[in-house]
């Protein structure tokens, strides 16, 4: 029943793609398409929610696909959870979409393709989650990739956009092949390509490792773990903002879903080495992600890098979970899994929120570069408030949702002492350390973002033209922001409803979550740790009210007087006196110097009046040390191979001649 609802959602998404082709005007097209998308999002979200809550697993076989391998579909708690994420965020974003598209897209053909592929993209994501056999999974997966490729290449008049799209599609394709191989290994030992067959498969240990490695690389390439992340910071900035929101907020989660499905659902067995690998890669992604984010000036590029960070945090949770599972502590494994999943939904919410906010900013100010923004809080208060909420959540500050998932991850890590081997224990300790560091750096990063973009004075003329965005765009941001708050305030309820997932995958749930009452979140036990999010909010507001009433200006006869800013007596400050994004992160750049390839250059003043130029460009080691050399290597070998095509016919004949001789030699 709910499965059919989900398929109805898929149908609606495809319909949205279809209707957008024949339309005559941009606005009607966008409205129709996004309305259908919104409905599809609602449908899938409800079905997913139901699938998660009921905890039962529904199956269905569609008469498409290969003749002997019809497309199997399923809906179990895990799939339901991720459907909820995808559907929900899609539904909210489809509020944002219309006015954004109308505002930013000028020509009809572009609008059509945009809407068309958005529909396909969303449908693809639904189908990936619903797929229950390797073939339909791969088809849906690549449909998702290809559709999003067209969305990234949407504005194809800039060369860098096209290049970004190329890198994106190439890596998506390679990743897809890895995943395919992973499934192939499972199917090779099992009886077939349906998930149930693969679960039944029994692999020798080294083949288990191979399958795991393939899946880890394949899905990691989509999820954007270091060093497979290079496509993210290139692709996200160039896509339209609501698409970036979908890609970063949702598509990465779909990759995580695939990974969880593969490890927990299909492989079924756990090895501590896997846990360590996932954990360490997670740490690396989290730390490097946020450090690179700190150095960015392009807002969306920064957000993309911070997605790498958050994926890293999710992988940390997964790694811990796998470690505990391999060590025979299912409860803690469940805790780690829940922490990861909770961070998934949180990141989906606040990252989409931030990307939408960024879209609104860029739409209004026409600037991608933080160093040209500033003072937008006065011009777009609602967007600013929502963006602030997003910043607080992503910096993992109470009482918002980001904090809860990081708190859960910490709690999981702190249980590391139950492990047997000292090595894994100390690795967990290090992981906890890097998570702590990540959190602090994230706060720094988003202080910078909000402070530079919204506070202070406008650093560029165009920024002053900005004004508050349309109702739909505001509404979607407000919805996402309130989602962040709700998940932050009532974590225990949310986690309780997620119980079915670990119960389904690991055979055990978190019994203790509400042991201290619904007000307190007590993942392990009431003694070990407790977090009463509602009480925290309550306490803060009480204290606030108290302080405010006590010192209320009217009751104390001292009104507020307004005056110019303190300028050290040097006369009025210009906007150039402000700190910029670059200068703000300069101390940190100085501390963690060798982390980035930095090209810092100062041009001396050419004339007396202009003060010279200072520019700093931060590259990416992974790109410069891994990908470029690889590309060069392939180019070299290609050049070598061309020698066989020398153009002389007698040489060609000689090839044929000697091939014949050699072959004869071989066979006799």
């Amino acid at each position: 029943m709910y499965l059919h609802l989900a398929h109805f959602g898929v149908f609606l998404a495809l319909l949205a793609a279809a209707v957008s082709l024949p339309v005559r005007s941009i606005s009607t097209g966008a409205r129709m398409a996004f309305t259908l998308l919104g409905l599809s999002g609602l449908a899938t979200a409800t079905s997913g929610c139901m699938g998660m809550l009921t905890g039962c697993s529904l199956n269905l076989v569609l008469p498409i696909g290969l003749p002997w391998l019809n497309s199997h579909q399923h809906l179990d708690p895990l799939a339901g959870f991720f459907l909820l994420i995808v559907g929900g965020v899609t539904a909210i974003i489809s509020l944002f979409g219309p006015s954004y598209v109308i505002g930013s897209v000028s020509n009809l053909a572009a609008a059509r393709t945009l809407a068309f592929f958005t529909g396909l993209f969303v449908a693809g994501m639904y189908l990936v989650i619903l797929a229950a056999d390797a073939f339909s999974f791969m088809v849906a997966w690549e449909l998702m990739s290809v559709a999003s490729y067209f969305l990234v290449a949407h504005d194809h008049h800039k060369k860098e956009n096209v290049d970004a799209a190329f890198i994106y599609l190439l890596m998506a394709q390679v990743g897809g092949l890895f995943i395919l191989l992973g499934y192939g290994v499972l199917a090779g030992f099992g009886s077939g390509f349906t998930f149930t067959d693969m679960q039944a498969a029994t692999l020798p240990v080294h083949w288990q490792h191979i399958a795991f490695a393939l899946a880890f690389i394949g899905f990691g390439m989509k999820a954007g773990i270091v060093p497979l992340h290079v496509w993210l910071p290139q692709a996200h900035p160039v896509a339209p903002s609501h698409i970036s929101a979908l890609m970063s907020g949702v598509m990465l989660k779909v990759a995580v879903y695939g990974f969880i499905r593969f490890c927990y659902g299909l492989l079924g067995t756990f090895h501590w080495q896997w846990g360590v690998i996932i954990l360490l890669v997670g740490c690396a992604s989290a730390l490097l992600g946020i450090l690179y984010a700190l150095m960015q000036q392009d807002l969306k590029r920064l957000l993309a890098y911070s997605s790498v960070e958050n994926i890293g945090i999710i992988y940390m949770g997964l790694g811990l979970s796998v470690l505990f599972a391999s060590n025979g502590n299912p409860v803690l494994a469940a805790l780690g899994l829940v922490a990861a999943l909770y961070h998934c939904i949180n990141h989906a919410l606040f990252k989409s929120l931030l990307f939408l906010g960024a879209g609104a900013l860029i739409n209004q100010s026409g600037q991608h570069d933080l160093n040209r923004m500033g003072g937008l809080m006065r011009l777009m208060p609602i967007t600013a408030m929502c963006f602030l909420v997003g910043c607080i959540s992503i910096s993992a500050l109470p009482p918002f949702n980001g904090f809860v998932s990081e708190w859960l991850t910490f709690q999981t890590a702190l249980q590391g002492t139950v492990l047997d081997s000292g090595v894994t224990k100390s690795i967990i300790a290090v992981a906890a350390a890097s998570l702590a560091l990540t959190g602090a750096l994230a706060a720094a990063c988003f202080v910078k973002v909000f402070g530079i973009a919204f506070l202070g004075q406008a650093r560029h003329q165009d920024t002053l033209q900005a004004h508050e965005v349309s109702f739909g765009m505001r509404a979607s941001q407000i919805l996402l922001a309130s989602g962040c708050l709700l998940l932050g305030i009532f974590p225990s309820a949310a986690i309780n409803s997620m119980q079915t997932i670990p119960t389904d995958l690991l055979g055990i749930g978190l019994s203790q979550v509400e042991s201290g009452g619904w007000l307190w979140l007590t993942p392990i036990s009431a003694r070990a740790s407790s977090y009463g999010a509602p009480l925290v909010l309550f306490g803060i507001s009480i204290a606030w009210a108290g302080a405010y009433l006590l010192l209320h200006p009217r009751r104390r006869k001292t009104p507020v007087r307004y005056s110019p800013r303190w300028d050290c007596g040097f006369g009025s400050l210009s906007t150039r006196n402000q700190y910029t994004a670059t200068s703000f992160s300069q101390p940190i750049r100085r501390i963690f110097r060798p982390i980035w390839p930095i090209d810092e250059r100062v041009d001396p003043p050419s004339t007396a009046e202009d003060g010279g130029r200072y520019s700093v460009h931060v590259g990416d080691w992974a790109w410069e040390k891994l990908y470029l050399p690889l590309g060069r290597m392939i180019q070299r070998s290609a050049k070598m191979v061309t020698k066989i095509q020398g153009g002389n016919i007698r040489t060609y004949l000689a090839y044929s001649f000697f091939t014949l001789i050699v072959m004869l030699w071989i066979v006799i």
Partner: protein
Amino acid sequence: MNFTVLTLAEQIILTLAALMLFTSFLLLAQTRLLTLIHIFALQGALLFATTLVIAFTYGRHHLLISAALTLGLKVFFIPIQMQKLVTRLDIKREVEVVGNPSLIMFGAAALVLFSYYAVLPIRELSMLATRNTIAVSLAIVLLGMLLIISRRKAVVQVVGFMCMENGLMFAAVAATQGMPMVVEMGVALDVLVAAILFGIFFFQIRTEFGTLDVDKLNLLKEVD
């Protein structure tokens, strides 16, 4: 094997085989176009003779037709056409430069040995006396390829190609006493058409490149 136990016909066939092989060597050694074409005609004639002998000895009368085709094509039509062509294009006196002839000769000899070695298993198998003609024909085919590879004149390459054809025909005739009729016809037809097309190409190449030196034909290549 003992040569004397063979019947006269078989002895004749083997001798013809040897002669054909010899003509191939002549072709390799020959540097003048016109003589080359004449030797090619001679090889055709030998093939024709072989076919006749086999046709009569084993009473394969359909071989007579293919013999006639061979005579018509390989002995008269193609050589004559080529001769006309060479005179028309005025390259009959042109001397082919061959990269180190003695080396090529040694290579050719090695090829002959190789082909004997290669068809060893077959020779064990056949109950026909003419079985080791397969080795000869293989040698002729390979020598034909060698000729094509080692010469730069398009005309000579064509001769080499036709020489390969001779080898194939010889194999078909001597080793298996002739393919079915349809096949023989079809092959002959192909050879005819091929010959005509080659003629056309000579003119096209000549007009576009001003020479028949195939080494000049290297506009299309990947290396840069």
